[in-house]
């Protein structure tokens, strides 16, 4: 919001003016009102490892994050370019593997990856699209440049908070929306449904789309129920589906009904107990066979995880050059790959300044944040790295910018990131904005909701 010399950035001027007029009590009262509303509506997430049925709110910050249109337009172009290249990469990997043959990415990095699904080799998917829904995590570095921190191509979540946070802001501060031209986001479910219908198996005129959840105890259940309701489609669990003669049906009160597209919110491993984890109670026996026969579309496709692994992430700019012949518009955060000896040596010498991540970790677990870690923690991590260097990457810690955040007593800077949702169907579409996550603890760099992060509304200002 502010420049380093203390002046307000131009696109924040009008909001800042409004904010300075608000008494702290009013903000605190609005904040409490938001919590009460979120509880009543049941916008909660389940917490793993706590008493059964424990539900928590994701803390909501009432100060929006504001992006000027010209910054957004550039970011949007960069994201579309990136997702186009990622889809091309996944298609290539499961077909000719040209990028491996050209030596751009070492073959063992891909083919030995646990997220690589040999079952998908040679399978054609509608439109050649694998990552129908991508959540790309963006940070701003200390030069003000946007950079991609992570590509989430499996079952990215959080979009319901993008939508609910906007609704909440409009309810709490209607006056702000008459004074600012904030680009709307509430058409997201329509675009998503339209995209999902556009990738139905060929020959299906009026496809039936369902959303597949692991059930009411899943941490993101609210979002699953919310999106299904917004799109007007059935929210199914594995037990509601069955496969007969390579066709997928759901059990309804009027008998079996054919299903054409599954927007699944469970991992590959649990989709089909016959093909993947045999102990999965969440999946549908025979689903993979129906999928390989082209009788059902699964979004995101099986096997997309091969492209969002942290060990593949450093190669995405190369993919953009390789498949599109273009220069990346939005770059990566500089990343050291510890399987390379010179990178390993550098990182081991600079551990207190760096963030080290396990390549298969997710949700903010299994990482070292150098500046925040104790000497003992750093030494412990050093041993873990030395034991298996190829399981780790490292990045500089400057990667998170801050945004003003309401912190009980007043407005304080807190670290943030941004997750726009990129939808691929006939075209690539991004609703303006995304989910801004904020690390609420002072100095913390971890924005994950499982680790004390919150969210805020994200405004793209149209002029």
């Amino acid at each position, binding site marked *: 919001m502010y420049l380093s010399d203390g002046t307000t950035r131009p696109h924040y001027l009008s909001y800042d003016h409004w904010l300075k007029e608000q008494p702290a009590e009013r903000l605190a009262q609005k904040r409490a009102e938001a919590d009460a509303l979120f*509880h*009543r*509506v*049941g916008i909660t997430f389940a917490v793993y490892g706590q008493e059964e049925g424990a539900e928590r709110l994701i803390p909501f910050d009432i100060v929006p994050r504001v992006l000027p249109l010209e910054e957004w337009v550039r970011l949007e172009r960069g994201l579309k370019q990136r997702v186009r290249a990622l889809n091309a990469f996944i298609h290539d990997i499961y077909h000719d593997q040209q990028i491996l043959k050209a030596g751009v990415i070492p073959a063992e990095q891909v083919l030995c990856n646990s997220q690589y699904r040999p079952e998908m080799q040679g399978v054609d998917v509608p439109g050649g699209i694998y990552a129908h829904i991508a959540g790309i995590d963006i940070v701003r570095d200390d030069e003000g440049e946007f950079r991609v921190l992570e590509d989430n191509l499996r079952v990215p979540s959080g979009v319901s908070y993008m939508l609910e946070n906007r609704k909440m802001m409009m309810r709490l501060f209607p006056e702000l929306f008459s004074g600012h031209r904030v680009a709307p986001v509430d058409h997201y479910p329509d675009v998503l449904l339209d995209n999902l219908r556009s990738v139905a198996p060929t020959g299906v005129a009026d496809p039936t789309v369902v959303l597949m959840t692991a*059930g*009411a105890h899943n941490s993101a259940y609210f979002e699953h*129920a*919310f999106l*299904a*309701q917004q799109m007007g489609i*059935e*929210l*199914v*669990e594995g*037990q*509601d589906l*069955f*496969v*007969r003669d390579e066709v997928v049906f*759901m*059990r*309804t*009160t*009027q*008998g*079996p009904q054919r299903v054409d597209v599954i927007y699944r919110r469970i991992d590959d491993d649990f989709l089909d107990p016959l093909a993947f984890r045999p102990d999965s109670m969440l999946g549908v*026996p*025979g689903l993979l066979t129906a999928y390989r026969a082209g009788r059902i579309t699964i979004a995101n496709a099986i096997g997309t995880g091969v492209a969002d692994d942290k060990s593949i992430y450093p190669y995405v700019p190369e993919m953009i050059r390789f498949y599109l012949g273009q220069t990346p518009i939005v770059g990566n955060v500089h990343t050291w790959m510890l399987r390379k000896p010179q990178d390993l040596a550098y990182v081991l010498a600079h551990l207190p300044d760096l963030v080290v991540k396990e390549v298969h970790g997710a949700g903010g677990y299994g990482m070292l944040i150098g500046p925040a870690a104790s000497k003992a923690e750093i030494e412990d991590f050093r041993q873990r790295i030395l034991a298996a260097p190829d399981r780790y990457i490292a990045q500089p810690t400057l990667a998170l910018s801050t945004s003003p955040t309401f912190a009980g007593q007043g407005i304080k800077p807190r670290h943030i990131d941004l997750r726009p949702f990129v939808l691929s169907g006939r075209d690539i579409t991004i609703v303006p904005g995304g989910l801004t996550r904020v690390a609420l603890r002072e100095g913390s760099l971890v924005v994950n909701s499982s680790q004390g992060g919150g969210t805020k509304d994200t405004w793209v200002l149209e002029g």
Partner: protein
Amino acid sequence: MLSRTADHLYWMSRYIERSEGLARLVDAHYRMSLLPHDDGVLAESLGHTMKALHIEDAYRERHAVIVPRAVFEFVTLDREFAGSILSCLRAARENARAVRGTLTSELWETLNSTWLDARSLASRTSPHDDIGRFVEWVKERLHLTRGVTIGTMLRDEAFHFTRIGTFLERADSTARLLMARQDDLRPGADAGSVPDPFEWSVLLRALSAFEVYRRLYRDVITPVKVAQMLILRDDMPRSLLRCSKELYSNLKSVGNEQSAETERRAGEMHAILHFARMEDILESGLPEFLEHYLGRVRDLGDRIAHDFLLPPVEA
């Protein structure tokens, strides 16, 4: 509609109806306990009622003797007892949460905040003083819930399954409460006498029928008239005839390829009550009649589960 969705809606409304029924029962007995009364009579009425509702054993596991206050606390607030009002509200909310996308947001928010508020009220409710206020509040919330259901839901399958759950539960509960008074209704019991005004007025209050009775009969309470009203009156919202009629018409609206026999049985149950005469029922024995009716309700419940809610696996 997904079979599982119908199943959750059906159980959601059964649990709502069950909590309301229990709240009425506690409320009626609690009011009586505030009047000058014989503790033995109150305890006996509670004993009969718990037996008819099949919750006496669960109570006996916790308490040796029937003490009204202990019963009130057990039926209302006991979290460990799956049949308490609090547990039923929780179960209703859990079922609603599993299909929240199918409910209108008004209905979901009403049920969700009822559970959240009930949970926090319950932890502040002293079993000695506040039970009356608590069940009063539960009744109000559930009246609100019914209003929101009827006032906001599309008249589609979801609505019909919700109604089926409501009326099946209600039919079961009315028949059981009458069973609890069966000793006064044996053949040969004097049709004119008022064997125990206390127990009978509690029954009427528990079914929201006390004032209605006075209006319809302008007379002292007699078991036969009460039974007549609660079994055969079409205009009485909790009567067996009314419940059977609603069940039949809602079932017809959701019929599928395999449900013809279930619909026929529901229609038959309605027809039997529609054409029944009180004197015939009394002659062949009211307890037997109620037993038979409860058997039909159980059978319908099983058949609905089989035809709609948990159809056999076909792969």
